[in-house]
Each structure stands twice: as structure tokens, then as C-alpha cells.
């Protein structure tokens, strides 16, 4: 058993490690920026693409539905997204939709990853 006080040293260490993670994420984001405009798959490794597909189904799915047919959030099926501009959709993922529960994913996803998700949704998620 480990009783934790929120102000204990353990929590201070956690906060530090989260700050480091944020710096690392920012660095990764900066590094990924040139890749966003580059290749078809945004240069994503297959393992990362699998993680993103899982994220979309399981976690985006908590609002958009695991089958992406919608819930509290809008449906994200290919026929719904057809004709919508990829950059606009990627911007919604990265910056959210103010006034709705759609949060900005920029703290968690690179631009290349958002672009990959948009393409995957339009084609039908694997």
C-alpha cells in the first residue's frame, strides 16, 4: 500500500516528468512539420499508423462512436466526409471546434498524424 499526498515528492517527480514529456513532444512536433507536406503516409511508421487507427476507433470513438457513425460527436464515415477539404478537416482535429466538445489534438498529434487520420477516415479506417 502506498498512500500518496498530492504534494509529495512522488507527485513533484511526476510533474517534472510530464514537463519533460511536453518538451519532447514539442521537439517531435517541430521535427515532424516538414514531413507533413511530404510523403503519402506522412512518413509515419506502420506501428504508429496502427496506433492512430486504434486511437480513432477507441478514443475518438467515445464521442464519434466506435464504428464512427456518430454519437455526441458527428459521424466520421467516408460518405459523410466526401467532398470536405482535407486541410479543413485536419485543422478541426488539430485545433478543435470552439463552442463544441471537440478538443484540440495539437498537444497530442503532429500535423502529419492529423493528415494521416483525415486520409484514413476518408478512405475508410483500417
Amino acid at each position: 500500500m502506498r498512500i500518496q499526498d498530492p504534494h509529495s515528492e512522488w507527485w513533484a517527480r511526476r510533474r517534472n516528468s510530464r514537463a519533460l514529456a511536453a518538451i519532447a513532444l514539442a521537439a517531435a512536433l517541430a521535427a515532424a512539420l516538414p514531413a507533413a507536406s511530404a510523403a503519402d503516409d506522412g512518413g509515419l511508421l506502420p506501428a504508429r499508423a496502427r496506433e492512430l487507427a486504434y486511437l480513432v476507433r477507441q478514443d475518438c470513438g467515445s464521442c464519434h462512436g466506435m464504428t464512427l457513425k456518430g454519437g455526441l460527436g458527428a459521424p466520421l464515415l467516408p460518405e459523410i466526409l466526401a467532398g470536405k477539404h482535407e486541410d479543413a478537416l485536419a485543422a478541426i482535429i488539430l485545433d478543435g471546434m470552439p463552442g463544441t466538445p471537440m478538443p484540440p489534438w495539437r498537444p497530442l498529434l503532429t500535423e502529419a498524424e492529423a493528415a494521416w487520420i483525415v486520409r484514413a477516415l476518408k478512405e475508410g479506417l483500417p
Partner: protein
Amino acid sequence: MKTWMRIIAVIVGLVPAAVAADGVRGTGDLGIVVERAAGSIQIVETTGRTSLGRVTGLGDLSHATAVFSRDGRHAYVFGRDGGLSKVDLLLARIEKRIIQAGNSIGGAISQDGALIAVANYEPGGVRVFDARTLEAVADIPAVWGEGGARSKVVGLVDLPGQRFAFTLYDAGEIWIADLADPKTPALVKHRGIGKLPYDGLVTPDGRYYLAGLFGEDGVALLDLWKPEEGVRRILGDYGRGAEKLPVYKMPHLRGWAKAGDLVFLPAIGRHEVLVVDARSWAEVARIPVHGQPVFVMARPDGRQVWVNFAHPLNDTVQVIDAARLKVVHAFKPGKAVLHMEFTPRGEQVWISVRDEDRVDVFDTRDFRRLASLPADKPSGILFAARAHRIGL
């Protein structure tokens, strides 16, 4: 007869779970674990902490929940795809299943156990069914405003007096439906309760209905003993205009938020649990926590409040001491902790860890892990003892 029942029990695999010599068992220690991606549930028992069997073919169970018949024999499982399934817990089989809407979010059972109400996103509204046969009884379209638009419905709960309360997400309204005459529900509508109410709860005594707001600070409160006073706002300025943190999963409210005279609620866009005094409804404390709270659940005795968190901090669970209003324990069950459920008297808590395909059972006194059960992407864990609780 005895032999016949024992054969059935063997077939459905119920025998290891301490079945009495006569082959008959109760359901007071049973429950279900939702396997969201597989469209199945496991039937579990909390005395020996084992799984008794699996029921498949329940459709899309992402965001599934269930209520229980008053005799504890059946679970009514609500699926995302509008499926309503009546599952026999003892025979581990679907007794009846209907698709009642296109997209649904949850449901409730009436005070007398005779009616099942389902909250739907598409078409927005509430549909009511006979609990025995699942035949349609009433339809309550959530029509609001001028143009006849329908609102998504959230926070559907049962109330004393054969009533239901629910909240219109798009409209910002709370409706009370009286089903004394089941075929012609009498509606009372409370309008203008606030922007984007995301879920609702009724306190365990059935007196207060609360709807949490996403679109602005605060919680809408309706005193059902004094409905003429209308809806008022509590916790109206907890954000105080500060920039909100992103919310990567919508919090959930239910009647287990009350611990003694205090109600514990998730803040929206702040990594805090808000505490209000249920006599005055004044804010008592804000407890800093690990992330955006999703479930804030009081142990049945009210001394502890367990909290899980939204993506990406969803590997952690924290425990608040309700006497000191401080986090006293934190641990990491694993990636994607989706739900927690206490046994009826609170000595165990069952926790679903989706990405690890596990349900873990913990002792709530010393936080030891008592058992771990394999489960396929588990989400909701719901115990049959909910049958006897108002609002669950």
C-alpha cells in the same frame, strides 16, 4: 426437476460459482462486464471473483450500459446501435433483443420495474418499452425550438412516482416524464438550463436531479420536491473565465457521486474534482487531481471517492478521502482505465483496463489487487445490486 436444473447449470457453466447443492443460486453477487468491441458481455460473480460465462451477439456495445430487473434475474443492455437486449443472468442467454433506434446512449428502469426507457441520439428522444416483452409502450420525441428539430437525449434516470428525468443536449432543457399512465406520458419541461448539458444524475434519495454543463461553467439543479422553484445553477463560476484545458473524453455522472452530505463532481476543462454541500449546494472544496476526471464515484459507505481520467492520462486511478478532501492514494492499473464498480457494500472495486484486456479487482481498504480476469476490451462493469438503487 433438481437434476434438470443442475444440467442447465452445468451447460451454462454456473456450477463453479458456489451453487448450492440444490442447483439454485441467487443473483445478488452477479454482474456484467461489457466487452465493447466484441459486442459481448461476461457474467461475473463477486464472491469468488470469477467469470461465469459470456453472452455474445449484443451488437455495437461501445458506450453500452445496463439496468437490472427488480428480481435481479435480467440485465437490460443498451447498445450504441440502438439495440436493447434482455439478458438472463442465470441462463447466460439473450431472452429478447430489439433494435429500437439508430443511435442510443443509455436507459433506465421504472420504479415498479415494469418499464424500460431508452435515451436516444437518433432519433432524438426517449422510447419506453414493456420490461417483460420489450414491446413499445410510449415514444417521447425530444422536439424543441421553432423548427421541429430533435435533440440528443442524455442523463436519463428513473425517479420516484413512476417518473423519468432526462436532459436535452442540444436544447439545454430538462424534462420530467410521468408514466402513471404508461401510454400517455405527462411531460414537464424546464427550459434554458444552460449550454450543452452532457449528462445527468439523480441523488440516491431521488430528490435532486443535476445536469452537468459542458458549454458553460456549472451544474443545473432541480429540486424534485419543489419543482415549482425551477432549475437553478450551482458551481456557476468554478472556471472563473480561465482558459479550459482540452477535454479528451466527456465525464459521466450518476447517482454514486454523493458521499454523506457531499456531492463530488468532475470539473470540465480543469483537473479538479468539485465538492458541494448537498444541503446548501454551496461549493465546499476543489480537489486537484491527476487529469480530466471522467468517473467520480463514492464507495457505497461514502468514505472514499474513486476517480479515473480522460485520455491520455487514463492509466491512473486516484482515491480521495471524503473526510480530509484530499487524494490519499494513486496507482496505475494500466492503459485505458474505462470504468469502476463497487460491490454493494464497497469492500471491492472492479476496474476495467481496456487496452490491457483485463478487469482487475481491488480491496478498497488496503488497495491490494485481489484478482484479475481476462476480458476483451472491457468497458462498463455493472453489478445486479443496481436493481435496488434509485437512479442506477
